């Protein structure tokens, strides 16, 4: 039975992509950017925003029942039981 947890796994893949890409960006800013107030503020602000967004997203996603089937076809009228996929 395929449940809607596939959407959750898809989101985890996107979070992984986000973390990797963010790492490369911050690496470039630290390696090639000047040691200036602006550069440091941008890095810190981004890390705060990213942490907040990911934490808030998982709070929202944890409220969902991921065990629900993806497709639920009622075929009782045909004399059989429901088909869950």
């Amino acid at each position, binding site marked *: 039975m395929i449940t*809607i947890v596939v*959407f*959750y796994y*898809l*989101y985890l893949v*996107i*979070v992984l992509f*986000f973390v990797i*890409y*963010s790492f*490369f*960006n*911050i690496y*470039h*800013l*630290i*390696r*090639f*950017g*000047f*040691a*200036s107030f*602006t*550069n440091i503020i*941008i890095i810190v602000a*981004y890390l705060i*925003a*990213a942490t907040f*967004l*990911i934490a808030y*997203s998982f709070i*929202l*996603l944890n409220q*969902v*029942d*991921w065990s*629900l089937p*993806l497709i639920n076809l009622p075929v009782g009228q045909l004399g059989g039981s429901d088909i869950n996929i």
Partner: protein
Amino acid sequence: MISKNSLPDQHVGEEVVLHLRRHWFIFLKIFLFVVILALIPMALYYMISQNIPTIIESDIGYPLLLVLFLSYYLILLVAILTVWTENYLDVWTITTDRIINREQNSLFNRIVSELELKMVQDVTAEQKGFFPTVFYYGDVYIQSAGEKERFVFEQIPQPYKIAKIIQQLDEKAKKNSPERI
């Protein structure tokens, strides 16, 4: 991080005159564009809740929408940082001896080139358009006798003043140079 006063392969007696970046208005335009993009999911959610509320109330529709919107915001956030990185790391440094051009063309594509001031042949400043005129930013083109024939300082503040500074430094460098060009 790099110190503002340090230079690659610094010559004896060489000092930094200016570090140039794109004008702040360029970053503001990017920021405003991102704010508009961030409002799209909210507008979509409102339209769906008003016109097709069954999608939000369904057991599959709500989680799917949630994942889509959250993914959109994550991708938008990392896209903002990428655009910032690519623009912020474009730096043009004018020293007493040379011009150093550091360009971040994309995340994994960085070019650093330099031009001796005594190799400068022509400097042109250009300000084209409504916003460049109002906010006083533009491009400076530097024609050289070097391997890379043209350097471009893109969307920098006070282009005419910068062009004049380069011309003055160029004259001084040629005057102090023992070689005749």
